[in-house]
């Protein structure tokens, strides 16, 4: 797998992080994806993907202060990095080009 090719879940997560801005962490990313796509991402899968994105240099994370409703546990906040932004753009461009001229019911291909 090439470094800059995003899987679908990764694509979704990166977009959620962009949308959430400063408030992106585990709970909000999950909720953002669930509310917008109806996809209930398991937390284990989420963090696996986040770790992969971080290793690829697409996002960076930082720990923030624990809050009481979290049982005194800290949060890991995520932010998009420049490489992540360009990967997201490239991924979108590839998809758009491939979709061009394809009808959404996938029955006929326009000329």
């Amino acid at each position: 797998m090439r470094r800059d090719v995003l899987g679908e879940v990764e694509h979704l997560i990166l977009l959620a992080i962009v949308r959430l801005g400063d408030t992106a962490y585990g709970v909000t990313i999950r909720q953002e994806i669930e509310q917008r796509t109806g996809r209930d991402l398991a937390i284990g899968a989420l963090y696996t993907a986040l770790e992969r994105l971080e290793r690829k240099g697409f996002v960076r994370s930082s720990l923030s202060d624990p809050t009481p409703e979290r049982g005194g546990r800290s949060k890991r906040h995520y932010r998009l990095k420049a490489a992540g932004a360009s990967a997201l753009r490239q991924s979108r461009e590839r998809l758009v080009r491939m979709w061009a001229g394809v009808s959404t019911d996938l029955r006929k291909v326009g000329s």
Partner: protein
Amino acid sequence: MTPQPPRVAEWLIRRSIVWRDRDSVLGDLREEFVARSSAESPRAAAAWYWRQVRQSLGPNVRRRVRDVMPSDQTPDAPRRLVGLGLDVRYAIRSLRASPGLTAVALLVLTLGIGAMTAIFSIVDAVVLRPLPYPQPDRLVALRQTTTATRPEFSSVTSQDFVDWTAQQDVFEGLAATVPGSGTDQEAPEPEALQVRRVSPNLFAVLRVGPRLGHAFTTEREVTENPYVAVISDGYWRRRFGADPNVIGRILPLDNGNWQIEGVMPPGFDEPFSESIDLWTPYVMSADERTRGQDHNNHLQVVARLKPGVTLAQARARMDQISAALASAYPDWYKRGGRALVYGLADWTIGAQVRSWMLMLLGAVTCVLLIACVNVANLLLARATTRGHEIGLRAALGAGQWRLTRGLLVEGVLLSAAGTALAVAAAYGVVNLLRTSLPPGVPRAAAIAVNGRVLAMALLASVVTGVTFGLVPAIVFSGEGMVASLRDSGRGGTASRARQRLRATLVVAEVALAAALAIGAGLFATSFIRLLSVKEGFDYHGVLTARAVPFETGGTAADRTTAGQLALKDLAARLRAMPGVDSVGVLGGALPLSGAFHRLPAQVPGRAEPLSGDDSADVYYVTPEYLPTMRVPMIRGRAFTDADDRADGDPVVVLNQTAARRYFGDEDPIGRTIGLPTGTTLDVFGMRTIVGIVGDERPLGPETSPRPEAYSPLAQGPYGNGYLVLRTNGDPEALVPVVKALVSSVMPKRVVPPPATLESLFGRLIAQRRFNMLLVGLFGVLAMAIAAAGLYGVMSYLVAQRTQEIGVRMALGAAPIRVIGMVLRQAVGLLATGLVLGLVLAWSAAGFLRAFLFQVSAHDLGVYAGVPVILLLAGLGAAYFPARRAARVDPLIALRSE
């Protein structure tokens, strides 16, 4: 009150998620759980939590596995290796930080792995390695039954070999080998060569050809030019300086001029003998082919199964063939003669040697196991003191796997260093072991530290390293890293679990050591019983020399008489030497040499001559022989010079067993028995019994006394024999003089080196001595290691209880009570280990039965005595920490809080 997530579900997440994300994930889940509880219901939230667990376990576990096994596809594989390099550097640093402990661990490992490597090199060479021929499992050895000897099978007669070869259809070929002889008279000192006469097809059956020249061809055999030879690589180098043009050269020996046809590759041995210099064709005489009078069971036969034929099929076919032969020649097959087929490796190595070797391997495995447990215990002790540091590393973000890996790397590093030292030591020890092995161990010459042995050492090293690296790692993962940080190493539940584990390890050590020590005790008891067996003669201080006086001319009887005179003359000259008390001459088999000269005895009142167990071992001796051997005279008279004449009245002296067996309660003195006169066993000459001597065990302490008959040398058929010297000093010192004197009567002949009876006796008991020394050594080693382990644990426990002891002493406990308290704890550990060890030894001892002599595998004395020794050693080891405890200064102990 805020609702709590399901505890089991939370625990599952905590155990499965990688360390790095543990807090964030648990926090996220709880946050959302709380939110859902108030938005929906606690029930729905719990259901949601459980769904999360179900769906997350898979990814979580996969992630951890990926961490354990970096794959090439993940882009950060190189970084993981860098991490490993760091681990190694870190491990080296931490090993160097505690040099004492590292040194002890290395010493224990070196001993354990070194012993394992050395023993394995023996076991591998002797029993594990396949025979050095292509497809060795297709080779078989053939023997045949006989009722004439014990055990009741023997080598094959030449006549049967001829018929088997002609009639069989299950083997690619049958090849026979028989002992040969040859003396190289061109050498500066006549050299007796190791010669084997072999069927010309032997090399084809074995599928090993010469490295130079060619092997025998059957045409040469029939064209009656049998004076051809194939020489060994060793002899080629020694005698011909590895001359490549040696083929075709003539080698003049005392029995002919041999033309060299081929040179075998290095390391080649035929299956039935070792260190052969020369192979010559075995050409049968006409006598050997026809079924006449003589049964000469002297052929060692090897064959290769045809493709597709099984051992069972070959056995069935050979049974048919021998049954047909037996009905064709009923007289010949009176005393057995059925063909026996064995796998070659089974035959040449033998079940006895195999189980002996496996026993040694088992004993040394025990030692290695104890060493492993001990090192695990040491590392655990250190990990305990390092608990704080490990907790800190965990807190700073080191993942659990990373910490585990660190401990593993330390273990493997330690065992690798120990293995390197062990292999170096094994090189030396193996040579020592090879030379101290009892004689007759098959393939002993091949024992060496080689690739296979090194591979085994490497395997042992990795397995031990991982094992004892893993123990502390498991302990820490069980406790949780942060617990280690909080717990300064005392009082907490975590450290109590660790104490329990260390105590368990010590108990295991003690148990293994006890089992091994019981084995050693059984071997030592066997050996003592062996040495206390009465031989019936005094073998100390006796030197023997074989002399074959070279006489020519006259009839065979004339030459025999001349030879006897030469022997007596030699005896007179030896007797005159300083340091020699008396000299006897013996014709026949030398006691303790393993040989015997057994003849049927004709006893009055019995129709048939007595054979088998009742046959007599016959010795032809000069009058001085029995006093020289210090065989006690029981009744009647000894031989005199008047008896020792060819024309004297035929007389005989029996031992007590013969007297009882042949005459019961009657007095045999003055009566007669018949013994065979010539080489055939059916003409008996009657002899008058003049005396009775005590019983002897000439075949060694493990045999029972048999009927024996002594007759004067001059009345026997031997013109050669043994000079037996009773010395009053060191018999070895006389060897050169004796050899020189003997060689004066046998010019141009190889003089066998004189040997003391003590050295012959030593050979007979060599295997038991070897077992006793080796297993004894293992037992002592095991005991020392276990005692060291106990010492370590007791020291640790005392250190843990310093405060408590301080309080007790402040409250007036006497030092002796403190010592007693610590020792009681040690006795608890020891007793548990000893009981387990006794049970282990008791149930495994059946295997030792075959190696014991006059001692039961469940000898109560050993089972009672050995634990006492171990208990004392253990208490000795525990005493030092106990004394340290008693010297605790209450003030200092309390202040250390």
